[in-house]
């Protein structure tokens, strides 16, 4: 199974990843979540062989069987949509009718088949990310690595992008995507939460939710202290085992879970 085992990466003297393991089963979407600087992109780059690892192993298919969409979308800004497709297709050995029909299907699914002559730089953010996804999927890779494909994309385009991602997994690819949107991660088969280069929690979304120690509660007034956070109109807080929660206890969702886990980790004696 593709993935990484006990991966450690040092970048410029600091540990960017420390003992990270992730399995990428075929036909499943794995979401890597975490804040800025948590190590999400480094994990992708290590899987791609773009950063040197100082420990652990990486097991991925050969480059021609990997599809990759960088966070910058990987679209050539001064090439048109169809020229982008043609260039990437030929780099992966696709040409002629095979490339044309594959591209037509993908672009139509992504809803960008009506602008073949528009330059990459003239596409809206959402369209560019969708084109980037199509480029990564063009050669039907066994492993699809997507770096924040939905960041900066409007809600409607995010829904469409997610549809494309799940379709890719359904067709048998192992998909790994990084995201900062936890509602997206909740739809993945496996969630890997990274914090400061370490795995905070990993497993199915429900399993990850189950790992929260203590209680998550909801109240209408700010309870004070650094264990509370605001969501919409209500105030959520986390209380360790043995303490009285300030509000009504709830089953946490993924967002609450990750905040609670981060708080719990920060209160652990070092």
């Amino acid at each position, binding site marked *: 199974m593709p993935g990484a085992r006990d991966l450690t990466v040092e970048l410029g003297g600091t540990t960017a990843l420390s003992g990270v393991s992730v399995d990428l089963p075929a036909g499943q979407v794995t979401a890597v979540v975490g804040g800025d600087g948590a190590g999400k992109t480094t994990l992708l780059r290590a899987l*791609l*062989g773009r950063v040197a690892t100082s420990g652990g192993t990486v097991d991925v298919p050969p480059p021609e069987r990997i599809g990759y969409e960088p966070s910058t979308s990987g679209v050539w800004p001064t090439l048109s949509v169809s020229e982008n497709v043609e260039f990437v297709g030929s780099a992966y050995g696709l040409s002629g009718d095979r490339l044309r029909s594959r591209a037509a299907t993908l672009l139509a699914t992504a809803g960008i088949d009506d602008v073949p002559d528009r330059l990459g730089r003239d596409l809206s953010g959402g369209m560019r990310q969708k084109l980037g996804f199509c480029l990564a999927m063009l050669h039907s890779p066994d492993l699809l690595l997507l770096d924040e494909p939905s960041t900066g994309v409007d809600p409607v385009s995010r829904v469409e992008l997610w549809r494309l991602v799940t379709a890719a997994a359904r067709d048998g690819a192992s998909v790994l995507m990084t995201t900062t949107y936890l509602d997206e991660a909740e739809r993945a088969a496996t969630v890997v939460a990274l914090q400061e280069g370490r795995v905070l929690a990993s497993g199915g979304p429900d399993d990850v939710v189950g790992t929260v120690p203590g209680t998550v509660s909801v109240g209408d007034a700010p309870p004070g202290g650094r264990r509370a956070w605001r969501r919409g109109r209500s105030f959520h807080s986390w209380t360790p085992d043995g303490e009285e929660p300030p509000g009504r206890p709830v089953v946490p969702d993924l967002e609450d879970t990750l905040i609670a886990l981060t708080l719990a980790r920060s209160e652990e004696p070092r």
Partner: protein
Amino acid sequence: MRAMIVKEFRELRRDRRTVAMLVALPLLMLVIFGYAANFTVDELRVAVVGDLAEQAEQQITQQVPADAPATLDLVDVDPDAGAQQARDALRDDEVDLAILTGDASDADGGRPTVLVDGSNLFAAQSASVLVAQLGDRVESEILYNPDLETSWVMVPAIIGLILTFIGTIITSIGLVREREAGTLEQLAVMPLSPTSVVTGKISPYFLLACFDMVLVTLLGVWLFGVPFRGSVLLFAIGAAIFLFAVLGIGVLISTVSQTTGQAVQVALMTMLPQILLSGMIFPLDAMAAGVRWIGYLLPLTWFVKLSQGVMLRGAGWESMWLPVVVLTGMAILVFGVAVIRLRRDIAPARGAR
């Protein structure tokens, strides 16, 4: 306002290249304009040939007027040599002027003939003044550029400048754009070998520069009547090698720049000394020795020597081998280092996989 000034200085301090430019540019300007900006060639290399060469040598050393614009450096006094040897020495840029005496001169009344190399514009101007001071005592002839046309000397040099421009600025921008857009990372993970990425990336610029070179050469010859007297093959080979050297500089700049702005900044910093110290504007012979040696380290200097030699004087391999060899050395060194660095940017990291 104080906060604004402090913020500006802080930002400036982090932009090392701009600071380097602020410090280096005035120094560079001072040195170049102080030591190099001199159009007057005050020492001329002279060959004296013909059977009266030795007498002429004595006469010259005694008779050169005190207010002559240049002193004469008699590099070759050979009574056995004739007019042809003198012309060869001029063609091969061994001397700036040649004096034909006795049987070598066909001027009437046994007067000596002074041959001046017109492709060396400022030396030729000094020589013309000197010849004029000698009046009727000598016959004179300016070779290669009889009317001392500036355009004839500039066009071969401009060809080099244009190649430098494309090779350095355009190439580095083209490569940095890929880094800026984040697509270099994309290329790196595609199943393309680093060699084919590098070759595919550089070839278009090489071809464009070749096209420009042919265009400018033809236009120069057509518009300004610049002669092309030498071997086209020698010129083409020299230009291609020179192109590798300047493309190498462009690629090298792209590997140390993150943005187009940075690349242009560095490229301009490499172009300015080439323009000023290559001998295309200020004659190398008129520069102070230290600055002249900086000129000899720049590829454009050698290309200007080659293109002026081949186009104007019809110089061949026997005298142009040195520029070709030096340019080859520079091309191998610069292009090699550049390609190694670029490959390192896109090759997989060691220890991975």
